[in-house]
């Protein structure tokens, strides 16, 4: 049996990635390895730095989820300083986090994912011309609208935090900013304008109409009932996704992990979590236990160190002779198992019936993963409105004093745009002794572990039937459906 071996370099994955494939003569992918090709070594350059330096350096891990890293770093420092931040600081942090998530979800969908439908692979498809008109890079109609709408939305982060990307307005104890009532009013206006665009162009209906879709039958009925639904981005996505088989492509593992949140403070002092933190699996739902998070390096070019991020180190081992090792991504595992993370994980943890029923019935696929991303803003927008409104009262307090820590061992977990993000920090004598970052893409794009269990998108690729083995577009689309951010996956390289 002849096996075709291919190395596929991918772009539009926020960094660099290679997928190594083996394809049999029936065009079935029998082996898939996910290989990062660039290493920036940010964890190691944290060692010896002042503890607040993480607030400056770690946002530079990524240019699109910069605020999420800032938040993870700040939360780890809150814990190190043993401080509880005021409710208004929580609201401000949440606001900037959610705004970044929405910006990312839509930029990923329309600038990074949908453009694959403009490839010659789909030239014969009846919706090809429309796809080109909408999503051609730097030229499409939706491309243009997305850039304009999201850059307007992200102004909220600049109003509240100075600039986007790469600000450091979150500090242990809260935030440095003191927004005026005028600032908060501007945030409200920007959000209103964005919501109108999202409802009109992306959903094609109001948020309320969308919330009424609870089953797959509801979804089909929604699509059929109105031309505005059919022609929105969501409608177009469903039509082209279903007719190209995206709903039968890319089944990943059945286990999902989420950091949950945001935790929205109410006016009565209580806090509600929009999404509970936890793990969703065939066994049910369980609370998140950070102690169960480890990173396996059996198949990674690192020397073996203890698996938990508090104890582990990043020790590059480029000259290993161990033939099992093929990637510089480490392999995060929860209780020894791989887990998918991202908007779909969040909607499952939030008990959204449309997604829970679909995933329990048939597992995941490209379509459902990206559908979750497209409608997650519908879940976030009301919470955003609540956080912004909650900040505008006379006695708003945004910061409480926190002493710089001399010794600490702490963690900050955040729901970043692509899923669970964690920063683990150990501080000795007022300097960082160890800093470990586990990003959502490290989860999703992880290599195999000591059991030989593949990572989520490796698993999703295996068994795929590709139309043209010389140009396996389907494989690329499966990987992109996870919204990979390779720059975040900071340990990754392959040394030939």
């Amino acid at each position, binding site marked *: 049996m002849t096996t075709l071996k291919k190395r596929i370099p991918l772009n*539009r994955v926020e960094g660099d990635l290679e997928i190594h494939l083996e394809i049999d003569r029936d065009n079935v992918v029998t082996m898939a390895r996910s290989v990062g090709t660039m290493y920036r070594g940010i964890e190691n350059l944290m060692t010896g730095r002042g503890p607040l330096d993480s607030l400056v350096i770690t946002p530079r891990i990524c240019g699109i989820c910069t605020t999420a890293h800032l938040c993870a770093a700040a939360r780890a420092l809150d814990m190190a300083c043993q401080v509880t931040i005021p409710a208004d600081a929580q609201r401000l942090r949440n606001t900037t986090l959610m705004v970044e998530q929405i910006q990312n979800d839509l930029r990923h969908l329309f600038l990074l994912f949908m453009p694959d439908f403009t490839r010659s692979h789909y030239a014969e498809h009846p919706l090809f011309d429309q796809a080109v008109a909408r999503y051609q890079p730097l030229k499409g109609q939706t491309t243009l609208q997305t850039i304009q709408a999201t850059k307007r939305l992200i102004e909220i982060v600049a109003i509240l935090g100075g600039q986007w990307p790469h600000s450091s307005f979150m500090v242990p104890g809260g935030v440095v900013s003191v927004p005026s009532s005028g600032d908060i009013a501007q945030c409200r206006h920007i959000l209103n304008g964005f919501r109108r665009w999202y409802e009109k162009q992306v959903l094609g209906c109001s948020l309320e109409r969308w919330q009424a879709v609870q089953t797959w039958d509801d979804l089909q009925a929604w699509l059929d009932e109105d031309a505005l639904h059919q022609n929105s981005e969501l409608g177009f996505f469903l039509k082209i996704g279903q007719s190209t088989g995206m709903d039968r492509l890319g089944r990943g593992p059945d286990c999902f992990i989420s950091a949950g949140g945001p935790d929205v403070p109410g006016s009565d002092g209580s806090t509600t979590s929009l999404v509970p933190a936890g793990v969703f699996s065939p066994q049910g739902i369980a609370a998140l236990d950070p102690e169960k998070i480890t990173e396996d390096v059996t198949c990674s070019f690192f020397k073996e160190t203890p698996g938990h991020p508090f104890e582990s180190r990043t020790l590059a081992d480029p000259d290993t002779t161990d033939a099992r090792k093929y990637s510089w991504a480490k392999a995060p595992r929860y209780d020894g198992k791989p887990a998918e993370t991202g908007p779909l994980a969040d909607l499952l943890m939030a008990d959204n019936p449309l997604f829970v029923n679909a995933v329990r019935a048939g597992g995941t696929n490209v379509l459902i993963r990206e559908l979750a991303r497209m409608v997650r803003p519908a879940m976030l927008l009301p919470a955003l409105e609540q956080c912004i409104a909650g900040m505008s009262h006379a006695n708003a307090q945004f910061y409480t004093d926190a002493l710089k820590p001399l010794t600490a061992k702490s963690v900050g977990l955040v729901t970043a745009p692509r899923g669970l993000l964690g920063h683990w920090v150990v501080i000795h004598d007022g300097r960082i002794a160890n800093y470990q970052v586990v990003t959502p893409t490290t989860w999703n794009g992880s290599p195999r572990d000591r059991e030989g269990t593949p990572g989520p998108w490796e698993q999703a690729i295996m068994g795929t039937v590709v139309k043209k083995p010389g140009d396996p577009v389907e494989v690329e689309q499966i990987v992109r459906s996870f919204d990979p951010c390779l720059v975040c996956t900071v340990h990754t390289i392959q040394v030939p």
Partner: protein
Amino acid sequence: MSKTLYWIQGGSCGGDTWSLMNADTPDPVELFSSFNIEVLWHHGLSVMRASDLDMLNERILSGDQPLDILCVEGSIIHGPSGSGRFDMLPSGPRKDFIYALAKQAQVVLAVGTCASFGGIGSDSEIMAGGLQFNKWEMGGLLGQSFISRAGYPVINLPGCPCHCDVMVGTLSALAVDDPVRLGHYNTPVDWYGVMVHQGCTRNEYHEYRIEEKRFGERGCLFFYMGCHGPLVTGPCNKALWNRRSSKTRVGVPCFGCTRPDFPQQYPFFETRNIEGIPIELPDGVSRAHYMAYKGMAAAAAPKRLIQRKTNI
């Protein structure tokens, strides 16, 4: 007459591309279309089969495909030990490919601090460097004497990330063959001729030496909280970020991200000082004069500023 542009990412976080997406007038779509810039390849955004990209690269390197503007985002990674193997393409270390591309380009732009000077990772195992500078020292990947085909050294557009106005403005000028006037460290004087300090809304507090030691207040952050605004150049408080604000205006100290030594080795958020006066003073200022001026400034401070009553 259109210009061709190729955008490659090295040791990058992608932040300069996302900063460019925030450009307002024009936005990037408008910029490329109305200024007739043909984007041959953008690593973060383009759609092209890998084999087609290989062919494009070959044609550029052979000279068959003219390349007017090469944009490099992210650092040149030399580690481990100068081999460049921490940043690999199928053909070999990416730094070698970037070197070859630069030889073909009419103009080479270092977009962001990492491409200009090394930036994040410049003091680490990855040995990050810039295109024509490694931190303060001229040289970098292309060497001190490199001049591009159109007669420019590498044009450095530092900033972490680079401000969208800087990218849009420089590309607009190059698109119509307007000369780009370069100043210190080969940065365009249009955007790097002004101090970050100019335009900060806390300037009045700064003038009268009302200096904070605590987050969340209205005063100046220079003396105690590590602000580099008076020390470094950049458009932040003139052009503003995202049309709205800047870090220093909301109370985040400037981290000096346009400077060749960013990120500094000493801790952020605190100012190293001698007897309460910062060690690093604004360019060209004598310490003796500065101490006298700041002493008198503090003495002249009105109550409304001392009590932090004046808004910012």
